[in-house]
């Protein structure tokens, strides 16, 4: 058993709420340690209230056990995950699924003006003529925006 084999298996574990991306694409796998038959994985949540967390943890364990190893998936409740950890491939997959990838984190907390007037790009037509419709969306990680050019509402990944 190699750590590479574990990473490849985890790269197939989908986020149940955004099935186009895996937990590796989202940067949620913080560490993989292989010790003989035992595999220890550190998983970080996106938002603390995200109900997908348990599903991802359980699916990660199943994927590791399918390799013939004993899985120990630990959920780390600290501040180490941010939307900056989403990989370039992950961002592209989000965009192709109609979800605006998160803006890079800047120093300090997000500001209302920034979200209202920032150049957020429509994942459908690429225009930045978009407006914030709602800070909150169908899951904790998304806001709702509207593209004035192609008249398409879309979901925008929040920056945290």
């Amino acid at each position, binding site marked *: 058993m190699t750590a590479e084999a574990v990473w490849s298996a985890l790269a197939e574990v989908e986020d149940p709420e955004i099935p186009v991306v895996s937990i590796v694409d989202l940067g949620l796998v913080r560490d993989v340690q292989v010790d003989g038959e035992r595999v220890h994985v550190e998983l970080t949540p996106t938002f603390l209230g995200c109900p997908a967390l348990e599903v991802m943890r359980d699916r990660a364990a199943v994927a590791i056990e399918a390799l013939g190893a004993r899985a120990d998936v630990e*959920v780390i*409740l*600290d501040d180490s995950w941010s939307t900056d950890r989403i990989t370039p491939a992950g961002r592209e997959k989000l965009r192709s699924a109609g979800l605006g990838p998160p803006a890079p984190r800047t120093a300090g907390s*997000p500001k209302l003006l920034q979200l209202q007037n920032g150049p957020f790009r429509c994942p459908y037509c690429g225009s930045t003529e978009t407006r914030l419709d*709602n*800070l909150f969306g*169908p899951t*904790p990680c998304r806001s709702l925006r509207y593209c004035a050019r192609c008249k398409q509402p879309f979901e925008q990944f929040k920056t945290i």
Partner: protein
Amino acid sequence: MNGSADPSRPQGALDEQERQALLAIADDELVLGWRDSEWTGIAPVLEEDVALSSIAQNEIGHARAIYALLSARSGAGDAGAIAAGDALSSVPTAGDPDALAFDRPPEEYRCAPLVQLRFVPDWARTIARRVLYEAVDELRLERLRASSDEAVAGLAAKIDREEAYHRLHAEMWRERLATEPRFQAAVEELWPYAVAMAEPDDREQLERMFEPKTTPSNSLLQGARRGAHADGWRELWNEMTEVRRSVPGASW
């Protein structure tokens, strides 16, 4: 809430003062999440239906994570670690976050009366509470982020990043309703609850932020203090714990 958060590396018992602070925050967030979720389906506009539901989900998620930390660091399995008369004394299994969330008798919850009050269908009070609560919450999270205990500081920082969006929501509504008499009256009415909920060190800063017209009387502050229970609390506790009490020991 079952087992979402594998205890993150037990490192011994928490600092007592921080443990009390964390328990108070977890109880506040659980109960406020419950109250905010009462708007699901009936908010004045669809956007707010989504917003209040999402905020409620986040607050309950924060409670869940804090209960998990408290459980992991309670010296689980060592009943002696929990002193008699302690707020957690009646929790049968100290290592279980769900037990902490739902198995305490109503009088042992540490949530502030501010979050216990039921406001549906009054939007003005609902928003006034959100605005005041987020202000108090930001100040106490700032203190915990500076904790020398890495697990406490890390979790507080994570929670604070999510709360940033709740603060934006509160800011947006505070601006929008600033000149509305009903909203102004609601802020004045709930001000004593916010002051009573805040740590004494934070009160001056809150006064600068809200410039209240009146100074609350001692009896008002006494009724609004943490540990007191507001009208409707027992009904809320009944509702909140009903499913778990219906089949004790079941795993969901």
